[in-house]
């Protein structure tokens, strides 16, 4: 039975009362405890810095050459908080409410409330670190709007908010490195989680420069390794994003929750060729001032300037007059797909709609538009070779964020004692759809203000581990197993490259388990995945050796995991016979084509337990109780 450990009592008091109950570690004892943090995005960096400040000994691991390069750096638009500086009616309650509703009622109320509660401290902390948020001439902070909200609660630093917040957290991390409280292991990939008597007490990593496997022991392990959108091959995520760390933890007994809850972002630069390696996001903030439209007539191939106002369909404004272009991401994405499927898509492929700034350029002038979105316009111009000041942008939805992740309780601990999971890597706060500007908020909430409390409570109940723990057979066995796996990958010496398999898997998953999912397609996917996996292990070609920097080998390991993981996404999508948020099952929709939930049968978190590759995983259900927000069909009309 899953115990979410949600404290009793009124929602508003849960976190405050819980903090008081959490056990503390004496300051002079803290340095006896070792904590491992894997991943250095917003969640990992902020957690590592905060834990080290408290006095714990922290080891930090990341894939890139520097912790500053984690993919949080690419978040553009902003970070939400309930400050209510604009006096437009915001509050902790409203942020909580919007997030639960935005997630289509598939998130835990208690977690979301806590997130909204600590949101304001995040802004304070980041300002104190020197994050150069946008300001008004008065010197006060400026806010803007994001999808799914009718208040302006988003703080931002031009189109580089993620970068600035991450550099703040990275600075905090490096400060602790300089003080000797954090040891940094860049260019390291976690290959296994090591359990001692059922508790997470270490990891096995591969040094990506030397190829050597290294064991690291600790009193607790924190995974902050991000999301798995790259399972679709093409996504807005960085190339190194992967599921490997959390997948290997899953194979060691951690439950994987709601894997099929993936977010497709509506505004990305469309696909342009089969060599394409990634999709580039155009921030949701653009929808503040841009209007989305398609030609009314299907197959209208005239350039946009020749299509007059009355021949255009501003379909989001027409369908959702209240929220207009600022409907949540899942709704905007589905509407876009619907228009393109009906033949009204634009561009060479017909898989795009217009994002038009002409009205804003007239209303505000070029200078203000440039001030707000200049870097995004430049990026678009570089990729597309077209000037968005002169003609509308073309956009299409793309995989972007994954709400699913390892299951955690209210303390952010997985079902494996000692294994904590934070940021995008866990499942907890966004339900079936995340609202814009909430990922940065969650990553930093977990790292700065939640984990430092809850991890202490776990450590207070443990004795520090034996200094020679890595010499135990359990670590040696993990090393042998992974060495053999690497050798196996190198030995196949087949005919197809890793990317051949990766692209095939990704495209198939996007077609059958992407924006529209049906029982028929999902079942087909379940037949195809094991076949691709079998072929991979028979015919993949991984050049080079395991003894130095080998980027093909790194990718092969990650793709091998995706070939297992893809099956779990599809199984979860098949079992959830309802539509909610980003999970849209064709069989379950309202007459207007909106997602139709089935609260009677599916108002729960699906937490899957590993039972062997190719075997049926076991489903644990954590029922979701909605005491504060009334379950209702989402309405943005």
């Amino acid at each position, binding site marked *: 039975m899953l115990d979410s450990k949600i404290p009793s009592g009124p929602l508003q008091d849960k976190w405050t009362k819980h903090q008081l109950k959490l056990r503390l570690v004496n300051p002079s004892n803290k340095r006896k405890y070792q904590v491992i943090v894997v991943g250095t995005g917003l969640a990992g960096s*902020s957690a590592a810095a905060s834990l080290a400040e408290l006095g714990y000994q922290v080891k930090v691991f990341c894939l890139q050459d520097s912790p500053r390069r984690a993919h949080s750096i690419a978040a553009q638009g902003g970070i939400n908080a309930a400050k209510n500086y604009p006096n437009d009616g915001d509050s902790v309650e409203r942020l909580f409410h919007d997030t639960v509703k935005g997630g289509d009622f598939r998130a835990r109320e208690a977690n979301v409330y806590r997130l909204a509660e600590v949101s304001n401290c995040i802004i304070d902390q980041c300002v104190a670190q020197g994050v150069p948020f946008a300001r008004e001439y008065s*010197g006060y902070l400026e806010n803007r709007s994001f999808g799914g909200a009718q208040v302006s609660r988003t703080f931002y630093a031009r189109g580089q908010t993620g970068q600035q917040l991450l550099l703040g957290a990275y600075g905090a991390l490096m400060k602790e490195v300089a003080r000797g409280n954090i040891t940094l292991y860049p260019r390291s990939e976690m290959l296994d989680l090591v359990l001692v008597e059922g508790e997470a007490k270490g990891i096995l990593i591969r040094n990506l420069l030397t190829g050597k496997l290294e064991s690291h022991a600790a009193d607790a392990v924190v995974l902050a390794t991000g999301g798995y959108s790259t399972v679709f091959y093409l996504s807005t995520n960085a190339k190194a994003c992967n599921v490997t760390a959390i997948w290997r933890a899953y194979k060691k007994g951690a439950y994987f929750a709601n894997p099929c809850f993936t977010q497709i972002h509506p505004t990305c630069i469309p696909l342009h060729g089969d060599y394409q390696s990634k999709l580039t996001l155009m921030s949701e903030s653009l929808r503040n001032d841009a209007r989305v439209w398609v030609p009314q007539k299907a197959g209208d191939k005239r350039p946009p300037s020749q299509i007059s106002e009355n021949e255009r369909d501003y379909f989001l404004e027409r369908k959702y007059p209240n929220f207009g272009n600022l409907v949540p991401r899942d709704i905007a994405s589905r509407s876009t797909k619907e228009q393109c499927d009906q033949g009204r898509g634009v561009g060479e492929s017909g898989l795009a709609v217009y994002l038009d700034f002409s009205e804003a350029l007239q209303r505000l002038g070029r200078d203000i538009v440039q001030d707000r979105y200049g870097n995004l316009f430049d990026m678009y111009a570089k990729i597309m070779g077209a000037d968005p000041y002169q003609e509308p942008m073309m956009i299409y939805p793309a995989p972007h964020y994954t709400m699913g992740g390892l299951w955690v309780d209210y303390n952010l601990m997985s079902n494996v004692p000692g294994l904590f999971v934070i940021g995008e890597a866990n499942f907890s706060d966004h339900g079936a759809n995340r609202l814009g500007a909430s990922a940065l908020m969650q990553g930093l909430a977990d790292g*700065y203000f939640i984990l430092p409390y809850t991890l202490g409570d776990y450590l207070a109940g443990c004795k520090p581990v034996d200094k020679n723990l890595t010499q135990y057979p359990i670590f040696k066995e993990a090393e042998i197993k992974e060495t053999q796996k690497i050798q196996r990958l190198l030995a196949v010496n087949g005919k197809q490259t890793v990317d051949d398999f990766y692209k095939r898997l990704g495209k198939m998953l996007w077609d059958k388990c992407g924006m529209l999912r049906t029982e028929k397609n999902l079942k087909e996917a379940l037949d195809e995945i094991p076949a691709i996996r079998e072929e991979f292990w028979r015919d993949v070609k991984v050049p080079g050796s395991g003894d130095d920097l080998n980027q093909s080998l790194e990718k092969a390991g990650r793709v091998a995991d995706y070939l297992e993981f893809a099956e779990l996404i599809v199984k979860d999508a098949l079992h959830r016979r309802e539509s909610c948020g980003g999970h849209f099952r064709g069989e379950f929709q309202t007459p207007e084509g909106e997602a139709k939930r089935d609260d009677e049968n599916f108002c729960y978190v699906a937490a899957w337990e590993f039972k062997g590759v190719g075997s049926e995983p076991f489903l644990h259900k954590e029922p979701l109780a909605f005491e504060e927000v009334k379950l209702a069909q989402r309405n943005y009309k």
Partner: protein
Amino acid sequence: MNKITLTLKVWRQKNAKSHGRFEVYKLTDIDTAMSFLEMLDVVNENLTREGKEPVAFDHDCREGICGMCGAVVNGQAHGPLRATTLCQLHLRHFKNNQTIVIEPWRSKGFPVVKDLVVDRSAFDKIIASGGYVSVRTGSAPDAHAVLIKKDDAEKAMDAAACIGCGACVAACPNASAMLFVGAKVSHLVLLPQGQPESEARVLNMVKTMDAQGFGNCSNEYECEAACPKEISVKNIARLNHEFRKAQIAK
């Protein structure tokens, strides 16, 4: 769709200790809408199929913000396009039958790891020596407790936009890191939050910069020209000013 044929001369080096050399790869009829890194992907897929080792190159976000990618292309860090990282450079900026020479960053501070991959950990060491505000989690006052002039916030943001790619060092004849250090010092000194530590910060960061083997500035302005985020050399002037001020105060 426009197609071009290119000859690539790519630096291949097994590891830090071995000698490197150029290898030549020919690409025929490739789409000019392709990005530079996608072109390298194509080279690597071809090499893999031929049973050879692909070219190692660093890359990650491929949207110009992570700072992971970079190479010297025909003598220019990040290639011929101004204000553009290598990943955002597209083949439409090259001519049919052009030869493109691709090399790693070359600087004492950034030893070559393999092929086009270099070790930039010196930048992390510089930041660790003071590139932050030492505020503990939880001790911050309300975000509106200290007001900041819009102009100052904008200038701080201009400097803070640095992605730490190292192109400034690669472009400088002295392999100087002063634009990188100047950007961080400026970002923090322009804000009230950065004031209390400003003197120690600039002294320590400059000391670490020197210890890591980076050269001095001799006003070539190559760093600014190569910077994908157009960080201004004014930040070097500010660095010198702050350094002088801190030395006097010491």
